[in-house]
């Protein structure tokens, strides 16, 4: 109908037959209203709730960070003073170091292992494929709190399973939460356990989208499996790999629950803040201590900038090296 209206010139001689009944024209205008405005009704719930509880608090964080803000209600504008103080804050840099240390200890082994497992699961004649996929993904189903409780016990000093295993290779019992390297290792292992399977599945999905004839052609040319992995799988996997790296970055730099539960709820993360992460520091400043909410908001923005920066760097790095 609309097609003929644009091609044929309007002819006044033959007016379109109008339905005489008023009822039909009313229902016609209702239909037009429905077509034109009802889509907004359908998307409204998302935008209303997200606007109030998502977007508004995020913007308000920026506003708060420019104030000496107290969550009870008092606040005064101080410009960028919070950010200046942040640069000189040794606890902030301590938390940054811890966050990045744990982040590297968890992300790198996790992604390498995921790449390895995905490559195994990608074999065509693999039996019990679904079973393996489910088993490897299963850790992701448990809550972080439960994982931290279970691993807290595995890493217990006196009767933990890990120290017991280490005793076989002649290593003395480690007091896991007492030192930087050991607490980082324990926390990173929780993250690795929980997320390796998830990343494996995402990478596997990417691998399955690679055309099989590429491999067959390479095999006919005599390329080994190893060579095929480097020359075909990795380059073709780049978009998926970037996705996985960025996802891990966002998650890794926001690490909170594992170190908190590992520290039995101590927000400073160990006696000497040896595993306090940025998210914990933000929580300490903004929520545990109501008087420094503005300063906590500045930490939140610093965190966000770091995540954006590291994601960007990863994006460029992964794209360059894999090409």
């Amino acid at each position, binding site marked *: 109908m609309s097609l003929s209206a644009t091609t044929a010139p309007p002819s006044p001689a033959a007016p379109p037959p109008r339905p005489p009944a008023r009822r039909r024209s009313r229902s016609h205008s209702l239909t037009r209203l*429905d077509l*034109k405005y*009802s889509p907004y009704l*359908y*998307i409204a*719930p998302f935008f209303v709730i*997200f606007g109030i*509880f998502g*977007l508004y*608090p*995020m913007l308000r*964080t920026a506003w*708060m960070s420019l104030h000496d803000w107290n*969550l009870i209600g008092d606040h005064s504008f101080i410009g960028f003073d919070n950010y200046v103080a942040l640069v000189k804050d040794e606890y902030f840099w301590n938390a940054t170091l811890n966050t990045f240390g744990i982040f590297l200890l968890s992300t790198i082994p996790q992604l390498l292992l995921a790449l390895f497992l995905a490559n195994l699961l990608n*074999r*065509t*004649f*693999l*039996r019990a494929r679904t079973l393996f996929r*489910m*088993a490897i*993904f*299963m*850790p992701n*189903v*448990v*809550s972080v*709190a*439960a*994982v931290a*409780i*279970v*691993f*807290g*016990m*595995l890493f217990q000093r*006196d*009767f933990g399973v890990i120290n*017991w295993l280490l005793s076989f290779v002649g290593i003395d019992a480690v007091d896991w939460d007492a030192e930087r390297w050991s607490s980082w290792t324990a926390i990173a292992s929780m993250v690795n356990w929980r997320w390796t399977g998830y990343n494996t*599945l*995402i990478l596997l999905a990417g691998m*399955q989208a690679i055309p099989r004839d590429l*491999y067959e052609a390479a*095999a006919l040319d005599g390329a080994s*499996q190893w060579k095929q992995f480097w020359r075909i799988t990795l380059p073709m996997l780049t978009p998926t790999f970037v*996705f996985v790296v960025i996802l891990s970055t*966002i998650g890794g730099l*926001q690490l909170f*629950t594992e170190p908190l*539960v590992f520290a*039995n*709820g101590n927000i400073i993360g160990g006696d000497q803040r040896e595993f306090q992460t940025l*998210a914990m520091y*933000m929580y300490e400043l903004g*929520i545990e201590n109501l008087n420094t*909410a503005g300063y906590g*908001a500045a930490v*939140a923005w610093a965190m*966000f900038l770091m*995540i954006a920066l590291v994601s960007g760097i990863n994006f460029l790095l992964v794209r360059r090296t894999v090409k």
Partner: protein
Amino acid sequence: MNSASRRLWRTSPLTYVALVLATLFSIYPFYYMVVIATRSLDSINDVPPPVTPAGSFGDNFGRVLDNDAANFLTGLLNSVIVSGIVTVSVVITGSLAGFAFAKLRFRGRNALLLTIIVTMMIPTQLGLIPLWGMIQDLNWFDTLYAVTVPFLVSAFGVFMMRQYATQAISDELIEAGRVDGASTFRIYWNIVLPALRPAAAVLGLLTFMETWNSFLWPYAVLTSENPTLQVSLAFLSYAYYTDYSQVFAATAVGTLPLVIVFIVFGRQIVGGIMEGAVKS
């Protein structure tokens, strides 16, 4: 398939060894949880560590129920309520908006869709402190409103349903509905929603698991008086970290529902995650 490509895709025994090892690593902490949850308190300090379950689960879980420092049963009930409401809401609002973005024409559609995609990339922690203040102002602290209302919608849910609706529902079908005089809502209810059912099921499962497991926000706005399950577990383990068999009995009970859900629907969950990865 010729013999060269058959050799190319063969699976060596080493592959199975590696995968079985990975499986054992994945399963062991679950098993360990069950072992400790069923052991009496004094057998936990044993060296070597216990490897088989015993019969003390009833005792241990009894201590959990008697323990009014963590309100475990309240937490369990709260988690069921909150996860249920959030799941239903995310599926309904997600499918409504997803349908609108995929199949309806309206001004600003692309810009609004882009907004949703961008918001998926912003970490929620950025808004944590002001949101906490808002909850105080609303007098929602330590109530279920605080952990339910902000999560009734999800950008990921809208995006996922939009992707699925775009490919699963033909324009002709909707056109046919219009010719028959159906209103847009009728078309949603009678045509779109049934067609979206597979995606809705996966989104529902993922949302349920995520809500059931969420920790940071409930921990910030709830107390041990009126906790969700995860908050209750945390307080239990802080206060009773010497009574591991009690804590593990609670942890096992809190984890079991998810493990059952996963064993029943695991195929769909795993498939949904892989599907989402390729599409996005």
